[in-house]
């Protein structure tokens, strides 16, 4: 079955309604997401103003309750690979470059949000993230996560992106939200 991708909105990048200012962004919220698509895809390229490796967290519909459960695995260029499972008040899509990383290097996160408009099932997502850091092999990582927003009643109508380590996403970070329709 063919599918179509539609750019719903973007922050930064060409043709955007909004670009991250030079002072950075603490929290970016994509609101009033139409429920007319089958799935959503979120693409993030970001860097944060903190040192070392940071995190990107996602929250749906502003839900700050402990309603996000996850399983993840990660590997890095040195050190022991790891993984785990748990729950929390947001889903952390680690990882993101910081000031300790190679200059001007941004991470990549791709998140597929399946059946986001369902009003009868929990919403599941799959994310993969890669952090490249040529300055330090210990800070080069990749991470794969699956998680569920355990809300069965409400369609996802907003997505909040923030750094839970308490710093800003820096200028030139980009966020693209696509709607995927089954034709």
């Amino acid at each position, binding site marked *: 079955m063919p599918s179509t991708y539609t750019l*719903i*909105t973007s*922050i930064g990048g060409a043709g955007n*309604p*909004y670009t991250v200012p030079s*002072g950075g*962004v*603490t*929290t*970016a*919220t*994509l*609101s*009033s*997401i*139409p429920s007319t698509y089958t799935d959503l895809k979120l693409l993030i390229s970001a860097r944060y103003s903190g040192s070392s490796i940071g*995190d990107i*967290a996602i929250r749906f519909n502003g839900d*700050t309750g402990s309603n996000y459960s996850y399983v993840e695995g990660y590997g890095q260029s040195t*050190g*022991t690979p*790891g993984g*785990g499972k748990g729950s*929390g*008040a*947001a889903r*952390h899509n680690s990882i993101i470059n910081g000031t300790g990383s190679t200059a001007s290097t941004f991470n990549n996160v791709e998140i597929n949000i399946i059946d986001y408009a369902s009003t009868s099932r929990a919403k599941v997502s799959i994310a993969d993230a890669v952090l490249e850091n040529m300055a330090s092999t210990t800070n080069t990582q990749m991470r794969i996560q699956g998680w569920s927003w355990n809300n069965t009643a409400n369609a996802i109508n907003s997505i909040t992106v*923030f750094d*839970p*380590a*308490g710093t*800003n996403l820096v200028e030139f970070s980009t966020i693209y*939200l696509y709607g995927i329709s089954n034709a």
Partner: protein
Amino acid sequence: MTEPTLMMHIVNCTTGEVTERPYTAEEIAQYEADVAANTARRAEETAAAEALAALKASAKAKLVAGEPLTEEEAATIVL
């Protein structure tokens, strides 16, 4: 040194309207809770990775020396 103002940036996907405003008091409280939770999560993750690496190193050393492994050490190398 003055802390930077926490700013909320909202893009309305339907209208394209962009809103920028400072955090509300409630959002600041949630932000502080998020930072604390993330710090704890990072510490747990680091501790778990270090503990696993130590177990693996210990298991390897014992294997080389021909010494018996603990069950925990064996679990790090037995598929």
